């Protein structure tokens, strides 16, 4: 006898299978690689075999249940359904959970702290903006950079969807892991020639990302830390040598982090974890110091340290918080934890704690002389800056307002189209 059951969306059959696989059970049960679950049942003394299979998606879940046995009737099927209701977590209504989570974790954690932090504290971009030839060019830096970023989903999500269709069993127990999707697609469809261009493109992307971060790292370390605090007043040749050593050290550190990253099954979780530790507090310090001229170097340092510490505490305690589990049930193996949501809350904690510590330390300490902040903080003008009144009129396509609203408009239209 076969029945189709429609659980409350979102219902993730893969996660249920993972849970059933890791939790010990007294009955005979097995899960195939294609996601078919089988177990023995006893209904009113009648032996039966139950098999379950997912036919739908996470948002439109459909479970096909088949009960096979010698003397099966409607009554025993109803009994079987009742018995497996709890096994398959059908009673939970995760949409309520998702609604709560969507309101705070995603909006404030991802939408505010992590995404603004990503786009405003990126060293490569900040340096480009600070070395721009005038204010307008500096304002245009992140806006022009935003345009290619809008179309990133087309380069990540669509090839991923194609790979899911074209590569059999991708991501399943017996198939190849998701991480192989792009190399597999390249190998399958690209002939010699374009294949080389694609490889060159990948290598160029790796190198560009690495080079931008390493050069920012050596500049910040040499100028702002080594020259400022540790060995001031040395000849330029000395700092040049320090910069070169730091460049080599930076590359080696970058390679070493690959070993940490390889311990994560999903690069997104790793990146968001790092961002919650470092970008989220940096964003809080940045935004406060940019608009408040009293903020001192000491409050910046202590705020950053406190924010990173807060993110660390959230990261290491989140495995024991039922809020981060679907339906609020902590499974013994911690396999079902919503890692992303824990990272979002880490980012929120880092931002809030950093902001509080920065404000308190600033109020207790002595502000920097205004002359040192000229041109860097809101409301403190650079006396050497050209008079804005005599500024040459910009061509219309260089207007920061037009570029900014253009990027927002395209994002809005694409969001509505792909909703």
């Amino acid at each position, binding site marked *: 006898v076969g029945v189709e059951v429609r659980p409350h969306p979102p219902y993730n059959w893969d996660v249920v299978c993972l849970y059933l696989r890791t939790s010990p059970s007294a009955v005979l049960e097995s899960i195939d690689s294609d996601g078919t679950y089988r177990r023995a049942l006893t209904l009113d003394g009648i032996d039966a075999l139950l098999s379950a299979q997912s036919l739908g998606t996470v948002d439109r879940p459909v479970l096909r249940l088949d009960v096979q046995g010698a003397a099966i009737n409607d009554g025993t099927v109803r009994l079987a359904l009742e018995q497996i209701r709890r096994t398959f977590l059908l009673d939970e209504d995760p949409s309520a959970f998702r609604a709560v989570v969507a309101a705070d974790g995603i909006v404030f954690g991802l939408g505010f702290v992590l995404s603004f932090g990503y786009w405003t504290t990126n060293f490569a971009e900040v340096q480009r903006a*600070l070395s721009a*030839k005038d204010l307008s060019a500096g304002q245009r830096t992140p806006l022009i950079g935003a345009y290619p970023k809008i179309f990133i989903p087309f380069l990540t999500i669509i090839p991923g969807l194609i790979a899911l269709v074209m590569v059999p069993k991708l991501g399943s127990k017996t198939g190849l892991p998701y991480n192989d999707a792009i190399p597999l697609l390249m190998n399958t469809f*690209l002939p010699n*020639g374009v294949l080389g*261009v694609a490889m*060159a493109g990948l290598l160029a992307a790796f190198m560009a990302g690495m080079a931008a971060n390493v050069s920012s790292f050596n500049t910040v370390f040499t100028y702002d830390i080594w020259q400022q605090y540790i060995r001031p007043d040395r000849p330029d040749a000395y700092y040049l040598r320090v910069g070169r050593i730091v460049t080599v050290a930076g590359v080696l550190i970058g390679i070493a982090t690959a070993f940490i990253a390889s311990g994560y099954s999903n690069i997104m979780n790793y990146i968001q974890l790092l961002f919650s530790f470092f970008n989220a507090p940096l964003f809080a310090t940045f935004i406060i110091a940019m608009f408040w001229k009293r903020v001192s170097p000491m409050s910046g340092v202590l705020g950053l340290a406190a924010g990173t510490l807060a993110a660390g505490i959230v990261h290491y305690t989140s495995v024991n918080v039922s809020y981060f589990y679907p339906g609020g049930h902590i499974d013994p193996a911690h396999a079902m934890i919503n890692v992303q949501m824990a990272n979002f809350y880490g980012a929120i904690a880092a931002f809030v704690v950093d902001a509080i510590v920065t404000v308190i330390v600033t109020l207790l300490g002595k502000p920097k002389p205004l002359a040192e902040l000229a041109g860097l903080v809101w409301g403190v003008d650079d006396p050497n800056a050209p008079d804005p009144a005599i500024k040459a009129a910009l061509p219309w396509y260089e207007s920061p307002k037009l570029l900014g609203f253009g990027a927002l408009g395209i994002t809005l239209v694409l969001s509505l189209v792909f909703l």
Partner: protein
Amino acid sequence: VSHQRTDSAEPESASAKLFDLRVLIGGLFTVYGLVLIIAGIFSSAAERHKAAGININLWMGLGMLALGLLFLLWWRLRPLISATST
């Protein structure tokens, strides 16, 4: 953070003109485009079959050539001028 600015009033050197980013980008795309076009013209049926029947080398090569030439044209029409001469 370092500020770099060319304050000298002397005319642009030949190397500064040659190492205009647009020359590097345009030159690279032009060369790659030509290589791909040649590979596309001499591609075998098996290679075309691999890319679902599309002569992807030829099309990609034409696109890259066009982009490279546009960068070179831009460099030709609006040469780099130093910050002091504006």
